[in-house]
């Protein structure tokens, strides 16, 4: 029996100490007519049999490690240095509980304090929490925070249509009981939509199409109307690009998956959340703070916990309890291992290679890449054939995972593909993609 250490002798001794004859007696409170259901589950496997089954399932998939991958759209094939998993596999980290007893959790607490510091450095903000579930829920929590900052007196939220479609959907799900008016407007027409009832404006940069821009005018317009500016950022891009804090953002959120989490078919990922000092008490999620112990030694504790669900209950800033502790640790190890120079280098590789790819693809007959404008890592390509057809061809004939079909989310972009190029795509892979597309239309 796996993982259960009891011998028959143990069970007998324990039942005797309790004063019952059998375990069934301990379950007498369970109504007899529903007790001990026959669960229709497949027979138990030994470890080696389980391994065989799982390996077979895994092998049947084609992955980003099996061929060139040019798919992004919110989940990215980025480099994960070996040191990340080496640390994550330490049992003292991954089998530890939430650090509610700080005296025996200094490892976790200090690691999160360092993570918070590094997120602040990356985003240009003053405080960061210990994580949200993912980028999408971090945006939803940012919207809720902004509404709370305004003490529920402002009910309008403006979200750029170029924020990731699934993030916008999650904001709607999360706020469906709050009586808010959520509007998706073009950034260009934003000034018209901002008014005294706007709690916040949410934009993404690089946006869902990879475009980047100067957010200063938007920050000024939002602040003039008394609204908060929420910026959804890409941490890999922030190795190169100006931080949202420098543009005047009030809350910076995003997806930290690119920093050491791997693709993992969509999760677990990492939502980061950083904001101004004045909003720290409205911020949801755990916070680690520095203090001293009884001997005057530096130590770390969870702080401002009274905002959280286990104390504040129905008035909590959020219901979040378990967050993404180990994934935040992965991101911290990643940021430590890449460091100041490495993060810049990764970002530059993404930037230059994506530009190279876009230029070469733009030269292929039948493909067009639209107007020039600054972008990072991703760009839009109009294809001569439906995107699913292009991707089927790329996969079947060349073993290449193609880009994202924008027609799924934007009706006017049917036939347009979002292509992503990262530091994991050497020039040969880009050239192979170009050759494949050329041959397709030849």
């Amino acid at each position: 029996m796996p993982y259960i250490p009891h011998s028959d002798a143990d069970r007998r001794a324990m039942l005797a100490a309790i004063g019952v004859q059998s375990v069934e007696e301990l379950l007498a409170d369970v109504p007899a007519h529903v007790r001990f259901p026959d669960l229709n589950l497949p027979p138990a496997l030994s470890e080696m049999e389980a391994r065989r089954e799982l390996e077979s399932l895994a092998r049947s998939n084609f992955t980003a490690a099996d061929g060139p991958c040019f798919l992004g759209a919110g989940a990215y094939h980025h480099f994960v240095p070996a040191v990340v998993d080496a640390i994550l596999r330490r049992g003292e980290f991954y089998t530890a509980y939430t650090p509610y007893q700080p005296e025996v959790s200094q490892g976790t607490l200090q690691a999160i304090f360092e993570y918070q510091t590094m997120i602040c450095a990356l985003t240009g903000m003053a405080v960061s929490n210990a994580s949200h579930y993912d980028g999408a829920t971090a945006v939803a929590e940012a919207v809720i925070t902004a509404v709370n900052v305004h003490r529920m007196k402002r009910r309008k939220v403006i979200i750029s249509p170029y924020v990731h479609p699934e993030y916008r959907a999650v904001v709607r799900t999360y706020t469906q009981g709050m009586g808010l008016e959520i509007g998706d407007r073009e950034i260009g027409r934003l000034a018209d939509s901002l008014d005294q009832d706007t709690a916040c404006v949410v934009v993404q940069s690089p946006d869902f199409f990879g475009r980047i821009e100067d957010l200063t005018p938007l920050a000024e317009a939002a602040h003039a109307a008394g609204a908060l500016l929420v910026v959804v950022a890409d941490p890999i891009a922030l190795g190169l690009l100006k931080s949202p804090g420098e543009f005047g953002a009030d809350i910076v959120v995003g997806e930290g998956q690119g920093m050491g989490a791997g693709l993992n078919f969509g999760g677990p990922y990492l939502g980061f959340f950083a904001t101004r000092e004045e909003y720290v008490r409205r911020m949801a999620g755990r916070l680690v703070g520095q203090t001293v112990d009884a001997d005057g030694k530096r130590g770390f504790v969870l702080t401002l916990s009274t905002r959280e669900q286990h104390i504040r209950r129905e008035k909590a800033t959020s219901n979040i309890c378990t967050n993404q502790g180990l994934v935040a640790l992965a991101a911290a190890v990643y940021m430590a291992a890449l460091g100041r120079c490495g993060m810049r280098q990764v970002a530059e590789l993404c930037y230059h290679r994506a530009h190279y790819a876009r230029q070469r693809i733009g030269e292929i007959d039948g493909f067009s890449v639209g107007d020039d404008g600054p972008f990072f890592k991703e760009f839009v390509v109009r294809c001569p054939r439906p995107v699913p057809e292009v991707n089927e061809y790329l996969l079947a004939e060349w073993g290449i995972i193609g880009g994202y079909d924008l027609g799924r989310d934007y009706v006017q972009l049917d036939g347009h593909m979002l292509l992503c190029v990262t530091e994991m795509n050497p020039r040969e892979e880009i050239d192979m993609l170009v050759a494949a597309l050329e041959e397709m239309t030849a």
Partner: protein
Amino acid sequence: MTEPLLFELSRPGRCATVLPALDVPPTELPGNLVRGELALPEVSEADVVRHYTRLSQMNYSVDTGFYPLGSCTMKYNPKINEEMTRLPGFANLHPYQDEDSVQGALFLMYYLQEFLKEIGGFAGVSLQPAAGAQGELTGVLMMRAYHLDRGDAARDVILVPDSAHGTNPASTSMSGLRVLEVPSDLRGNVDMGALEAACGEHGDRLVGLMLTNPNTLGLFEERVEEIAALVHDCGGLMYGDGANMNALLGIARPGDLGFDVLHYNLHKTFGTPHGGGGPGSGPVGAAPSLVDFLPGPVVEMDEEWSEESLPHFTFVSPQKSIGRMKAFYGHFGVMVRAYTYIRMLGAGGLRRVAEHAVLNANYLMSQVKDLYRVPYDRTCMHEFVCEGIVPGAPDVRALDISKRLIDYGFHPPTNYFPLIVHEALMIEPTETESKETLDAFADALRRIAEEARADPDLLHQAPLSAPVRRLDEVRAARELILRWEG
């Protein structure tokens, strides 16, 4: 034992990672959009490894010792699960890949859905919620959507027992609904009289009742079926907080007890690791009446098993789905671990998990109840609550007992929860602990009770042998230092 911060170890010019040189012609950078400084550490790979290894050595963990944490189910985390989730054929899958290229992953998700349906007695499952609290929010939103769908817009009240976990009322508030607290009776059950009164007075405004069973006192609700009938009779729904499923695996199915929707905690019941604060996973099961409201997408089999081929799977969105709870499909990496766990246990193994969890808790309670009062004179399920009070030692509280346990090599139990027990210590041994461990823990509690009477100051000073002594939490909250500033 203090470990310097990464920034204190940093030295200009150090770089841990070697990256390839640029192999394409460079493009001009957009000058006004490029950052000037990036204040991240500069350390070598050895620095990184030593730093984090030393940090890890300051942590307590399941791999080092026993966690008697009530409501957390800190069972042993099987190592095979760690290997399976890291298989390249799972770890390198992009969520937006064509479905035909990821059928192995969809197979796993589909059958995990099926297993959880079977274990809980539900008609549908969504694996999307990222954690228990998110599962709760999902369930409450589903109940709310159900009523609105039937044209019943007057319902805005959720009943929550006073013993409930804080996430219950917090999730209710997030959904825009009101919490009405229901007291517990002297046997630790929901007070039926109070519940009847609440249903009588608020029946037509009732969205539902959120119930944990067994409850946070570790006690099975003796009249759970009556409770369900009462709530259903006034048109409300039954939400199940599945945090305590470890007591019910193969013993009873919440769906059979009258629950309409329930969240599971894979990181509790199904042995996936706690990670120092996540990631968890909180799938939600639904009765036939609520299946259409589940968050999507979920996995369906669109081509059956046949002699020639494996089944084919696809993502579909439930017809009246409340929407997405997060991007993508949920914590796939955690699902792989839970799937492996369930495959290795099977129905018989799961039942033995629950039986031994209940056996361990009752045994430990029998060893401890003469030292620390257990307010409810009943058989417990997989956990029990006692009072952290020592007769003859009036200045010693649950907090002091907990901190002193650290000196005996144990992680403290859950403190001060549930709120309805004075100086509560909630103890859940789980089924993976041996009799020797339980005896050693009981022995430590015995000695601490003696110390409390003989030398209470020792307990006030505890812990004495941990990497740090008691930390000044008031100072941490008054002088907020939330990042290193040099």
